[in-house]
């Protein structure tokens, strides 16, 4: 496939934007109910990025703070993707407060919080995505990518297994709290065609 084909046309971008909008709303609703807060919904970013660009996007999302991240693979109908949830480390203080954790927030507590929120955000988002696209996903077990690390360590820029990724990016913030996390759904080259095909049914 030539590189030129891997560009989103306006119509498909709109579809992804809408589908993401709905799925992220469902995920936000789950999180809001869990934490009893109001989640501020941003405009989702839909892009096809190269490895280097992805790293740059991640870097700007983290505001150069140290981050902690959880990823989870999923697959269905020939579409394989990975969900990546990145927390700014400064968020954990408020998350702990909302989840009613008392005492010191050590790495173990932080891991607990990360996993809880990852399960909910990623799970609800994938449910929303699958529902709209009339498919279902198998989910792998979530993996802790790193705690307190530099974001550029998370994804290697010179990955040889993929050239381009479709990214659906949602930056969640929570009203009146210092909580900032970035949810990314990444689909590599070989899944984009298949996903485009499935998404284009929504245009009919």
């Amino acid at each position, binding site marked *: 496939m030539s590189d030129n084909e891997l560009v989103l046309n306006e119509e498909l971008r709109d579809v992804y934007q*809408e589908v993401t909008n709905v799925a992220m709303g469902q995920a*936000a609703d789950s999180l809001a109910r869990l934490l009893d807060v109001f989640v501020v919904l941003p405009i989702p970013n839909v892009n096809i990025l190269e490895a280097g660009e992805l790293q740059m996007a991640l870097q700007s999302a983290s505001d150069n703070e140290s981050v902690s991240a959880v990823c989870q693979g999923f697959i269905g109908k020939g579409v394989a993707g990975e969900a990546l949830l990145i927390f700014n480390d400064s968020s954990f203080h408020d998350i702990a407060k909302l989840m009613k954790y008392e005492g010191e927030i050590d790495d173990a507590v932080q891991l607990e919080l990360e996993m809880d929120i990852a399960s909910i955000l990623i799970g609800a988002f994938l449910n929303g995505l699958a529902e709209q696209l009339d498919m279902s996903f198998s989910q792998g077990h979530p993996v802790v990518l790193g705690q307190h690390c530099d974001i550029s360590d998370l994804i290697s820029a010179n990955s040889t297994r993929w050239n381009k990724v479709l990214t659906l990016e949602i930056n969640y913030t929570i009203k009146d709290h210092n909580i900032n996390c970035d949810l990314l759904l990444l689909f590599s080259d070989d899944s984009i065609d298949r996903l485009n095909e499935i998404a284009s049914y929504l245009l009919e």
Partner: protein
Amino acid sequence: MARALPKEWDIELSFAGNGQEALDAIHEGKGDILFLDLTMPVLDGYGVLEAIRAQDLPTMVIVVSGDIQPEARERVRGLGALEFIKKPITTDKINEILTAYGIIA
């Protein structure tokens, strides 16, 4: 969204890419009924509702949003929206609401 509107409905349809464009369109008399999203660049849906109320603009607002948090629903109702439809929308749902408000028979 446009695809979900009733086919036989005799209306003129304008699209706005963000909240400010929507307000401009209403000022030009292009919006008796406004289907309003909440997450938008430039000016979001809440801002549009506030402006409509502040300027007492003649339009009926139906919010169409993926934000299904109870607080979002309450806020838009508080700001004067007639209805809240959660995405993804269906023709049936729109028909039901338009009928309920006597906009279509």
